């Protein structure tokens, strides 16, 4: 599928999505509560078939937190970037996608560990790298640690 067809398809799944072409990959931004339904449609539709989540990264935008999903279809060979911004910086919560792509289970745990974004319905939401009693989330921009980080 080319980018125009993909854009039309995404808008048919989720009319409120904001789709941007002309970047490295086609980029769709949706509201945080639409994430799971859109992801499921993108995975299950025969025309899009995004079966491979090749990167999942958490972002601290300063005033908000978010997650970026890099998707690819292994048979149709097209890519898509899905961007989600959490509603609340104090209590950031998103729906998990690890029922759709199993690799997300570890990747979401990493985002939870380092950026503090909580994922609903995740089977095992624990820190993955740091100790259970670690205070704070190191990848956040306002994280400070006088012992470890040299300014």
């Amino acid at each position, binding site marked *: 599928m080319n980018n125009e067809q993909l854009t039309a398809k995404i808008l048919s799944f989720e009319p409120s999505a904001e789709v941007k072409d002309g970047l*490295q990959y086609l980029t769709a931004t949706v509201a945080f509560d639409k994430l799971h339904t859109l992801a499921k449609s993108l995975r299950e539709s025969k025309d899009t078939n995004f079966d491979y989540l090749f990167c999942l990264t958490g972002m601290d935008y300063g005033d908000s937190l978010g997650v970026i999903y*890099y998707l690819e279809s*292994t048979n149709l060979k097209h890519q898509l970037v899905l961007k989600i911004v959490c509603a609340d910086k104090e209590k950031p919560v998103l729906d998990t996608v690890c029922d759709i792509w199993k690799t997300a289970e570890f990747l979401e745990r990493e985002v939870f560990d380092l950026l503090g974004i909580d994922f609903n319905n995740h089977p095992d939401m624990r820190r993955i790298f740091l100790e259970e009693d670690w205070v704070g989330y190191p990848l956040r921009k306002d994280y400070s640690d006088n012992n470890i*980080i040299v300014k």
Partner: protein
Amino acid sequence: MAEIIQDIQEQEYLINMGPQHPSTHGVLRLVLSLRGETVLSVQPHCGYIHRGIEKMCERLTYQQIIHLTDRLDYLSAHINNHAVCMLVENALGVELPERVKYIRTIMDELARIASHQLWWCSFGMDLGALTAFFYGLRDREPILDIFEESTGGRLIQSYYTPGGLMKDIHPGFQKRVKDFIKMFRKKINEYDQLLSGNVIMTQRTQGIGILTEEEAISFGVTGPSGRGSGFECDIRKHHPYSLYNKVEFKEILRTEGDSFARYSVRMDEMRESLNIIEQLIDNIPAGDFSVKMKPVIKLPEGEYYQRVEAARGEFGVFISSKGEKYPYRVKLRSPNFSNLSALHSIAHGQKIADLVAIGASLDYVIPDIDR
């Protein structure tokens, strides 16, 4: 006594494998839940050597990041650096001299062979074949010598830099590489004779540790491990970079998905890498080994992503820039982390001794998991 034995066979119990277990090839701890000898679940505990490289990168310039990506998967140091350099070059629209592309492609493939050789060593050793360990290390030495001669480093080289290479190749580079290819073509057949057909080896790997193609895609298991399950994921083939669209090579695929399939993919991949190097080594064009870049590189505002095929799978770099000399956020998509997430799915229901063989066939490098 009989009662105790029956008790052990029926009870479920937990055991820690690692963090100091030789077969985990580094500081990785696996919490196993067992019944008798059968593995019920595997829970990896990571983070023993987490260094916070992504956080560190936020206060380093683009040239300095190279020295940290070396230290992720240290066996594909060249390839990791290639990803960062290409990201910066593509973002700035820098056109590289052909010479740089040739040298980078050859170095990448040499690194891939060296990495697979070390994997073959440790694979043999994990199954008790100590000769494999000595043979593999012996034949890896010439590659490390080639690296040392041209780059100054044996394990981690920091040889690539945004805009080209740190220094030109040594005058003896081509001859040494050709000598190595000639030598290794013979040796790799010896590897097959020694280990590939060995009865103990085949019985412990064939039909064991099966990962289906669907699961490989869902777990994002890439590289030789994914291709052993039939997942066509070679970035060199599907998203060619550098000179990979100019050279001829096959994407090695197996469909069995067991430990032996992952083994044979790597063996054939070494041969393909030799083919790639052979096509390039005589044609390295003369010219500059780098483009003049500004001393302070500032990427235009935006988000960039670059994928490459490292020795263990797809390696990706994500950089978000605000137009300053430091990146705003760096994310490193490491192949081993995704491969590790599939371990429970592969190993449950298998015997604990086979878990060692499965781990060996997945070829972990722990610093790449822990970043």
